[in-house]
């Protein structure tokens, strides 16, 4: 029931965001065109705006939101840390470095970006995990510190790559790094959708094991979970999700923090519900954030990452102050 309600909300948000923007479209015209009819009250120019510019962007926003929110929920459960999030862990930056290396060295290759982004994400994930893991497992504080270290290290790598790039591309890169959905291509959109589907399915299939790992690896082991295998699958799936989203839209921060928390507030902690619900709610959240990003100072645009960080950073501070033991 609630999932159906969330899907309905997603559809409504989808339709609204397709009509608002620098160029407003009529709601009836857009609805008519979206349902596939040819004779609608839209001009040829308006049709082009809807189908060539707005729709791919909204679809990408949805896919990116799904990827990041599901990955966030998975990292939180696996690392037993309500503050874990792809952006804060440095995983997004890992994927960003991968993407940039692909752009600089194999710029012509369509698939280079997502593949390298996935590689970067998985490398950063393991690095943070190794750094944070102490004798008694990874404490929340230790994990966030490891994330900061990996993030700053990778940021300097990003700065290094940007300086060797030609100056004309730097501005668009800075924008992309903050999370930008405007540069989508059909192949990146396809990659993001496939990754979202594969990643979310893999996570949902391991959600029962994640429910136990969330309470401690030793307990999970005692109860029959093959913890090594589950950890590997979940890390790989989450890295795939983050890699695909970063390759197509840069580092959109805090989605993986905000969305799973809101979902847990209403659904509880069972990952069999949290992960699919976060996937749907994440899509809605990023579509709304991106609609704001391209309308608040239209015709100019903000990077979508600026909007999500504006919402996410205060929430992070609130959660940190409240203490991780009693986090929602």
């Amino acid at each position, binding site marked *: 029931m609630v999932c159906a309600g969330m899907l309905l909300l997603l559809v409504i948000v989808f339709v609204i965001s397709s009509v608002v923007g620098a160029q407003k479209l009529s709601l009836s015209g857009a609805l008519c065109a979206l349902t596939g009819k040819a004779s609608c009250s839209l001009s040829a120019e308006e049709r082009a705006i809807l189908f060539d510019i707005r729709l791919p962007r909204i679809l990408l926003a949805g896919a990116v939101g799904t990827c990041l929110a599901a990955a966030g929920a998975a990292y939180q459960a696996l690392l*037993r840390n309500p503050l874990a999030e792809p952006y804060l862990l440095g995983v997004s930056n890992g994927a960003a470095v991968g993407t940039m290396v692909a752009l600089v060295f194999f710029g012509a290759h369509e698939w280079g970006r997502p593949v390298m982004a996935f590689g970067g994400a998985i490398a950063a994930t393991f690095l943070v995990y190794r750094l944070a893991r102490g004798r008694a497992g990874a404490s929340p504080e230790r994990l966030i510190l490891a994330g900061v270290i990996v993030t700053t290290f990778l940021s300097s790598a990003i700065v290094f790559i940007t300086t060797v790039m030609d100056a004309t591309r730097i501005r668009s890169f800075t924008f992309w790094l903050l999370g930008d959905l405007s540069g989508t291509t059909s192949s990146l959109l396809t990659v993001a959708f496939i990754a979202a589907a594969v990643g979310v399915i893999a996570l949902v299939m391991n959600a029962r*094991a994640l429910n*136990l790992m969330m309470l401690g690896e030793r307990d999970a082991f005692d*109860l029959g979970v093959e913890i090594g295998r589950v950890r590997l699958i979940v890390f790989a799936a989450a890295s795939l999700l983050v890699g695909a989203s970063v390759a197509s839209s840069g580092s959109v921060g805090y989605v993986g923090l905000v969305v799973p928390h809101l979902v847990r507030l209403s659904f509880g*902690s069972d990952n069999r519900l949290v992960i699919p619900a976060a996937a749907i709610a994440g899509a809605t959240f990023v579509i709304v954030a991106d609609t704001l990003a391209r309308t608040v100072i239209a015709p100019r645009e903000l990077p979508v990452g600026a909007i999500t960080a504006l919402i996410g950073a205060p929430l992070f501070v609130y959660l940190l102050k409240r203490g991780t033991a009693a986090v929602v």
Partner: protein
Amino acid sequence: MLEAKNITIQYDARFAVQGVSLRVEPGKVISIVGPNGAGKSTLLRALNGNVKTTAGEVILDERLLRSHTRRAIAQRVAVVAQEADVRFPVTVFEFVLGGRYAGANLTAWGWESGRDIELAQNAIAETELAGFESRLMNELSGGERQRAVLARALATEAKIFLLDEPTANLDLAHQATMLRLIRSRCDKSDSAAVVVTHDVNLAAEFSNEVMLMKDGRSVAFGSPREILTEQLLKQVFGLQVLVDAHPVSGAPRVTPVHEMRSVPPA
């Protein structure tokens, strides 16, 4: 059903457990008693494969423990660890239902069946947590949480229980309830339990056999009456104790003799 054959566990140069053998048989409760750092918990952990042995073998149902899958071991052996550290808003019911991980009959959508839910509810009732089902784990008291940990182990339907300090956070009444629960499971069905405990008197009351451990070695093994003697306890704990018979149960009763009085006599 479960047997440790001459096992040794070594961390770097230190021997945590050295050449210990233990046989767990249906209907028996075995207590492992000894000072801090004697290797009791490590030995317990080795019995379900959570700690790897350096030498020796652990046998479950006539096969090497490591030749069983994780899931198969979890269906046979349940662990009651010291209190769980819960950082997410998990309800008592969800927590206990987690015990059904290995043995659940899942529905097509991946949810536990009515029988799994019934087993979890029974376990909650047995541990006197009825009414707590929808309370959050991190809002419970230490004792309530520990009972939830026991309930989760009972919900597994495993026949062998490994308990690590199960009574550490419990009040007097619940200590007895908890051990009576384990005791009656072992008496009624073909279950068995290994209990690591600091409470020598509880071990004397509830166990068939006691193992005294010191410095990773098994110092003595036998019935509580044979093992809980003034001489052996002094040897293991380095403390003068007085052992007499419990006035009601007749089991050995151990009273430490302190040389210093903390409260001056009136």
